[in-house]
């Protein structure tokens, strides 16, 4: 069951270049495509522009040139506020750490996206009937014990926090999940378990996954492998895509 109605790529970057004002070109991407339901592992060392790539796709910064389409919509066609709303509707994000708002309980963290996005609220209601059962179903699927659901986020272990973050990203079934080094603070066993869970739940929700990490050992879980090195300006001409 794939929730994305359109057959458009979940992510499509064409001839994108980016540099911070007054600096050299940081990224040069001829083509990057992620189709609905696919998962992609993007490998790169820290400082290699991974976060910048996610900020570009998330519409928080605009490319110097080229076009970025997410779920068929060109981000440059949207206003700043429109891109914010679009991100809230279409993308679930997971960070390396500090994912959760510490003053909210696990379940309240999970429900924030549907409180900020009526699109995702509609999708959650459509799939589960109520916001609460949507959140519970996700937390259950991500192996978080019921006893922890109402615990403040800062009282959860790092591994538990990451699973709550994943549940939040999947809440309201956005077509695209982006994760930025979400496993780097977990030990090896838990890393694998987390990635498995994330991919399984994403597949259930019909979401494409863009996973950014320096840890190549996780790459075999994903359908597509992409190296950040290919997006360095000097290497751009050798881009296999």
């Amino acid at each position: 069951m794939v929730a994305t109605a359109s057959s458009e790529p979940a992510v499509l970057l064409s001839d994108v270049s980016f540099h911070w004002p007054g600096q050299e070109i940081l990224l040069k991407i001829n083509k990057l495509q992620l189709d609905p339901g696919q998962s992609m592992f993007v490998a790169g060392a820290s400082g290699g522009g991974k976060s910048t790539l996610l900020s570009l796709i998330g519409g928080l910064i605009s490319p110097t040139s080229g076009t970025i389409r997410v779920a068929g919509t060109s981000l440059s066609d949207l206003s700043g506020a429109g891109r914010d709303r679009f991100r809230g509707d279409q993308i679930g994000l997971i960070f390396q750490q500090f994912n959760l708002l510490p003053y909210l309980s696990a379940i309240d963290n999970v429900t924030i996206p549907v409180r900020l996005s009526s699109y995702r609220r509609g999708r959650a209601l459509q799939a589960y009937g109520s916001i609460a059962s949507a959140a519970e179903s996700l937390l259950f699927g991500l192996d978080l014990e019921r006893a922890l659901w109402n615990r403040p986020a800062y009282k959860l272990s790092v591994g538990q926090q990451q699973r709550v973050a994943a549940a939040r990203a999947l809440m309201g079934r956005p077509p695209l999940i982006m994760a930025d080094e979400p496993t780097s603070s977990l030990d090896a066993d838990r890393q694998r378990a987390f990635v498995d869970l994330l991919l399984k739940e994403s597949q259930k929700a019909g979401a494409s996954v863009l996973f950014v990490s320096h840890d190549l050992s996780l790459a075999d879980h994903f359908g597509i492998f992409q190296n950040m090195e290919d997006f360095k300006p000097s290497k751009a001409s050798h881009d296999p895509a």
Partner: protein
Amino acid sequence: MTRLKTLATLAALSALNRKGSLGLILASLVMSTVLLVGLERLRTQVREGFSQSVYGVDLLVGARGSQTQLVLYAIFHLGGAANNIGWDKAQQIMKRPDVAWVIPVSMGDFHRGFPVVATDENYLAHYRHRRGQSLKLAQGRQFQELFEVILGAEVARRLGYHLGDQIVLSHGGGEMARAHDNKPFTVVGVLEPTGSPVDRGLYISLQSMEAIHVDWRGGAPIPGLSIRPEDTRKFNLTPKSVTALLVGLKNRRLVFQAQSQIQNAPGEALSAVLPGVALDLLFQTIGQGEKILFLVSILVTITGLLGLAATILAGLGERRRELAILRSLGASPWDILAIITLESLWLTITGLILGLGILAGLLAFLGPQILVNYGVALEFTGPTQREGLIMGAMVLAGLLAGLGPAIRAYFFSLTDGLSQRV
């Protein structure tokens, strides 16, 4: 609307999570509120209390002198009178055809710090307090004989006096006051509480006042002379003078005519004062001081709000992560601006509510003390229009104080993007 509600909830929960640092600034906002609203309350209620106490008195007649001094002394028993009015002159006024009633008052004696007012039956019959209510006896009866006294409610309560108790008056109120200890008075009545200066007084007849002074001259007992109470009846106890006359006219509209006739009458020079006008004059004088106090409390409030802005601003650094998370969830820079502004608004409103609560507590606790010592009733009623205005201005200022840090957060969130610099 749901979005704003979500943002407001997030702002409140986030602030609650940082209650340590925000608690201090909240305390300063609470104090600002207590000061600002409390001063305003004090100002209006003092005025209201003063105005209520002269209710129904059309003219206040005393020896020629300061208008405000006469009102303060004759009505509020504050300060002292320079001169008295001769009794013949007083009688002339009582006999005027346009006069409905006259309450003569003669003062100068005290009992344990409470002023003694010598007067006649008209005091009970015609004096009005709060919104025109007349005085009533809670117990006992009006004084009739010599050496009988009725007590204001507060005097009876504070000193624990009952009907039939014997008390001694003293001449003057100071430490060195000489007692009229050879002529004790009997308590025959206690007045109901009024919340006015009446509660602090002891009331005797003008004749009693004469009687305790028959063996006195020039403010001191005549050495070697002590006349027994029962023997004072042999003297002529018609008062020689009174301190002031509280005059009610048959027709209030003729008050200016009566005033000028009394002031311009030949013989002893008198002041005839419209109590309301005299109070206005008094308020004008203290108005300057009030303005300065008000200005100071506004400055205190501004200091509190600047502290609020500084605290929020200082906290932004460690909150960049939190704001980046919200951005990743679809919050726009405008949402971030709203959250920070709402936080400031929450704090200001919380400070305001807590401040009003503390003020209500203070008034409940201190109000009776102030009533006893100054005869001014302070109550915590609903906010007046002006207080509402002050509170509204505070909330608005709180909003503006939050706007500075909010704008900074707005630009943070524009440039930070998803990178969570720590």
